[in-house]
């Protein structure tokens, strides 16, 4: 470090801001994952078992979202929706909507793979004891599928949490935005960004470790 004198007091003075920012990011990630899971389930079923007229839009949705930069989607939704006459979403809501749509496409792929990997025998056994189609999904296929895909869901949550950094681009006060603000106000470059980096790292690994424990608890060993 070339003559850089650390002064961490600016971080302590802004600590509340950092914590609020972290929680906001985490909250946006979790909500987006939940909505994305719902979308993903519907889309995965539409692609796998839906009628032809539904398969196509489902395919387009997934491929479109996955091949377009998230930041572009963020701007598109934030600036574009009012143009389409849809008002009333604040920054956070607009970002969560975007991130949910984004998560939905990735979750759809996760669930599609998960459904495809379930041995046929489970569904057949469920049919053989007389469960009806919805019951088969509810009691056998979905529980097994969620257990199989839990590691991928974990990875997606960690990714989504990191993706909340893009909300800074539309001035949502999450971690990246806050670090940039503290940086700009105090000129403590290293302190601001090291703090943000550390908080991201810590949280990302904390999510991963906690959910790995959940995975162990619910692992399906086939």
């Amino acid at each position, binding site marked *: 470090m*070339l003559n*850089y004198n650390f002064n961490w007091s600016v971080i302590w003075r802004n600590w509340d801001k950092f914590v609020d920012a972290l929680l906001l990011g985490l909250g946006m990630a979790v909500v987006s994952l939940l909505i994305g899971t719902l979308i993903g389930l519907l889309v995965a079923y539409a692609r796998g078992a839906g009628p032809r007229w539904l398969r196509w839009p489902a395919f387009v949705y997934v*491929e*479109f979202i996955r*091949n*377009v*930069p*998230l*930041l*572009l*989607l963020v*701007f*598109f939704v934030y*600036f*574009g929706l009012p*143009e*389409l006459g849809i008002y009333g979403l604040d920054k956070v809501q607009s970002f969560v909507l975007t991130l949910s749509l984004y998560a939905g496409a990735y979750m759809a792929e996760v669930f599609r793979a998960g459904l495809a990997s379930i041995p046929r025998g489970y569904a057949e056994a469920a049919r053989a004891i007389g469960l009806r189609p919805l019951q088969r999904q509810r009691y056998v296929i979905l529980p097994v599928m969620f257990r199989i895909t839990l590691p991928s869901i974990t990875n997606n949550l960690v990714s989504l949490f*990191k*993706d909340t*950094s*893009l909300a*800074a*681009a539309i001035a949502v006060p999450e*971690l*990246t935005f806050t*670090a*940039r603000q503290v*940086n700009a106000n105090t000129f403590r*470059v*290293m302190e601001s*960004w090291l703090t*943000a*980096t550390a908080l*991201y*790292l810590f949280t*990302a*690994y904390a999510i991963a470790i906690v959910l790995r424990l959940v995975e162990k608890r619910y692992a399906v060993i086939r």
Partner: protein
Amino acid sequence: MIFERGHFIYEFWVARFSLLAGLWTTVSTSFLTIVIGSALGLVLGLVLAYGIWPLRFLARFYVDVIRGIPLLVLILFAYYGLALFKISVTPYWAGVIALSAFCVSHVAETVRGAIQSVPAGQDEAAKAIGLPFLKRVRYVILPQALRRVLPPWVNTALEMVKGTTLLSVIGVVELLLASQQAIARNYLILQFYLAATLFYFIVNFAIAQLAAALERRFRRFKY
């Protein structure tokens, strides 16, 4: 009518040079990032798989840290931070450095995974015919591993192309920022965002499909 102020075609024509310049920046940053990131990533992947433990530990630390923080933070950190080290770089190069650092960690992890997925018997068979370490890696392990690298590598490459949009945040005028600058002049929000969106979609989708076709051709080498 079409060639009137305020119409998308007209405004697009007016903005054509700045959009093309933005496109060129997107292409060049993507290209540099993927080339630098893949080359260094290959080396780091080899270190992860074969390095002596202090080196391997450092490589593991680097990969896990980079993969744990958002790309945007990396870019901003590089942008504001490099100046502190009296390294005066333009936003363009700060961005390329950050994107490459990110790309390296992902490629390294992919390469390590691919190397370790080659069955141990292959290495043993190579040893049995008397090949020394470097030749085993060069002629037996890597050719098999690189085939497995292809799909995740293409994925990383596409992530990098999409990631170049984040450079707009530090003022690099790539395609997204060029579009936004056009929007700032003509206020055709939907049209210009849609155009940019479609552009990314078509390019990335095409690359992904091409890679998938390539991978199908490789599949016959599976054992």
